C-alpha cells in the first residue's frame, strides 16, 4: 500500500474520490455506538421529542376516540362529548378540529424542534475534537454529515415511536375514564393507526430537521481543529 503513487491530474479525481469510503453499515454501527456511549445525553435530547410527539398523538387519538363514539350514534354519549369540551357542529359525525388546538400542536412541535436544534448544536461543540480527528484520518464532509443524520434518525425513530405509543395510551386511558369501555369498543382502528403513524412520522421528520444545521456545521469543520490544545 505504501507503494501507491498518485497524481493530481484531473482524470484521477473521480478514482481518488472513490478511494475514501465509509460503508453504510459501518456508519450505522458508529452512529449507534456513539449514541449508546452518550446514553444519558441522547436520552435527554430524545425526551423533548417524546413529549411533543406524545402530546400530538394524545390529541389525535383523543379525536379518533371521540369520532368513534359519535359514530356509535348514541345521543347521551353525544351530550357527554359536548360537555367534555369537544367541538361538535349540529349533527356532524366528526369532532371539529379547532384552530386553537391546531395552534397549540404546531407550537409544541416548534418548541420541540428548537430544543433538538439546541441540544444537537451543543453536541457538535462538544465533539469538535472528535470530528476534527476523524477528518485528519481522512473522513469526508459527507461522512460526518451522514453520521449526525443517522444518529438523529435513530433517536427520532425511537423517540417518536415511544411518544406516539405513550400519547395513544394516555388518550385511551382518558377515554375509558370519561366514557367507560364504550371508548374502546367504538374505537376506529384504521384512523387510530393512521394517527399513530403520522405522529411518529412527524417526530422523525422534526428530529432530522433539528439536526440539519448542526450536522452541516460539524461537516464543514476544519481538521485543524483537532490540534487545538484547550479542552
Amino acid at each position, binding site marked *: *500500500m*505504501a*507503494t*501507491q*503513487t*498518485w*497524481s*493530481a491530474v484531473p482524470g484521477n*479525481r473521480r478514482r*481518488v*474520490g472513490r*478511494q*475514501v*469510503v*465509509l*460503508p453504510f453499515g*459501518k456508519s450505522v454501527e*458508529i452512529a449507534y*455506538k*456513539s449514541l449508546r*456511549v*452518550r446514553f444519558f445525553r441522547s436520552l435527554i435530547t430524545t425526551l423533548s421529542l417524546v413529549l411533543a410527539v406524545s402530546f400530538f398523538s394524545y390529541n389525535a387519538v383523543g379525536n379518533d376516540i371521540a369520532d368513534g363514539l359519535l359514530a356509535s350514534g348514541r345521543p347521551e354519549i353525544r351530550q357527554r362529548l359536548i360537555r367534555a369540551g369537544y367541538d361538535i357542529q349540529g349533527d356532524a359525525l366528526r369532532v371539529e378540529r379547532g384552530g386553537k388546538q391546531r395552534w397549540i400542536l404546531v407550537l409544541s412541535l416548534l418548541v420541540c424542534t428548537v430544543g433538538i436544534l439546541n441540544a444537537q448544536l451543543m453536541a457538535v461543540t462538544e465533539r469538535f*475534537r*472528535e470530528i*476534527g*480527528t*476523524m*477528518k*485528519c*484520518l*481522512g*473522513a*469526508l*464532509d459527507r*461522512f460526518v454529515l451522514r453520521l449526525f443524520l443517522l444518529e438523529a434518525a435513530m433517536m427520532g425513530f425511537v423517540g417518536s415511536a415511544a411518544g406516539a405509543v405513550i400519547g395513544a395510551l394516555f388518550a385511551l386511558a382518558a377515554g375509558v375514564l370519561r366514557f367507560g369501555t364504550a371508548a374502546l369498543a367504538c374505537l376506529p382502528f384504521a384512523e387510530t393507526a393512521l394517527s399513530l403513524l403520522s405522529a411518529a412520522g412527524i417526530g422523525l421528520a422534526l428530529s432530522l430537521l433539528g439536526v440539519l444545521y448542526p450536522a452541516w456545521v460539524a461537516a464543514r469543520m*476544519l*481538521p*485543524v481543529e*483537532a*490540534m487545538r*490544545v484547550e*479542552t
Partner: protein
Amino acid sequence: MNPEPSPPPGETAHVVRVSGVTKVFRLGKMEVQALKGIDLRIARGEYLSIMGPSGSGKSTLFNMIGGLDKPTSGKVFIDEVDIAQLDAYELAWLRCRKIGYIFQTFNIIPVMTALENVTLPMIFAGMNSDAAVQKGLRLLEQVGLGDRHSHKPSELSGGQQQRVAIARALANDPAIILADEPTGNLDLTTGEEIIQLLKRLSAERRVTVISATHDFKMLNVSDRVVWIRDGRIDRIEDREQLSITIGRIGTRT
C-alpha cells in the same frame, strides 16, 4: 513485513518540499506574518524535529506540511504534488493514506475501543473489516498494547492512549507521520518511551517522522532539527552538529 517503496532511479527522495512559504493571518485590522518565507526539503525516512518557542510559526509550518492549512504564498509539495492544487476528496485521501497524525492531546475517538480507533482509517481506505481487524491487532501488538485492544480510551493511561494514536497513525502505511508535541501531555519517562517507540517504528518502516516540539528529549533521536524563530528558519542542525552543541541546548529556546 512492510513493503518498502524504493524510489525509482533518478527520482528525488524528498517526500516533503516546502518552497518560499509565507503565511499571513488577519486579526481584525492587524496583519500578523506567521511565516516569512520558509524553504525546506525533507528526505524519505528522515526523523525531523521542528523546534521553536510558541508564537514562532512552528505550528503554522507544521499545519502547512500536513495539508491542514494553506500558505498565503509559496508551495508545499508532498511526493512532488502541490497540495494547494488538491480538491476536498484528494485532501481527504492524502490525510487518509499518506499522512499519519499524532496529537498532543492524543485524540483517541472516545466512543471507540483502541482497536476500533486503529481500524477506522483502514475502513476509510476501503479495506475490508476482517483484514482491518487483523492488521489493527498486529499494529497494537507492535506498540505494546496487544492485550488492551478492547479498552476504551477512558480506561487507558495517557501513554497508552498515545500508543494507540501511533498505531492508528501507521494504519495505512503512510509516508509521513506528523506528530504535534507528541510528548507535551506526558510525564518524562512516558514521553521518553513514546519517543523511543516513534524512533524504532520510523527506522523499521522507513517512515518520515516530522514532529513539532519543544521537548529536548526529542533531539537525541532526530536526524535533523529545524529551529524556527520569528517565522523564519533560524538554523538547521544535523545530528553530528547536535551532539557538539548539546551541552548548551538546554539554555536556549
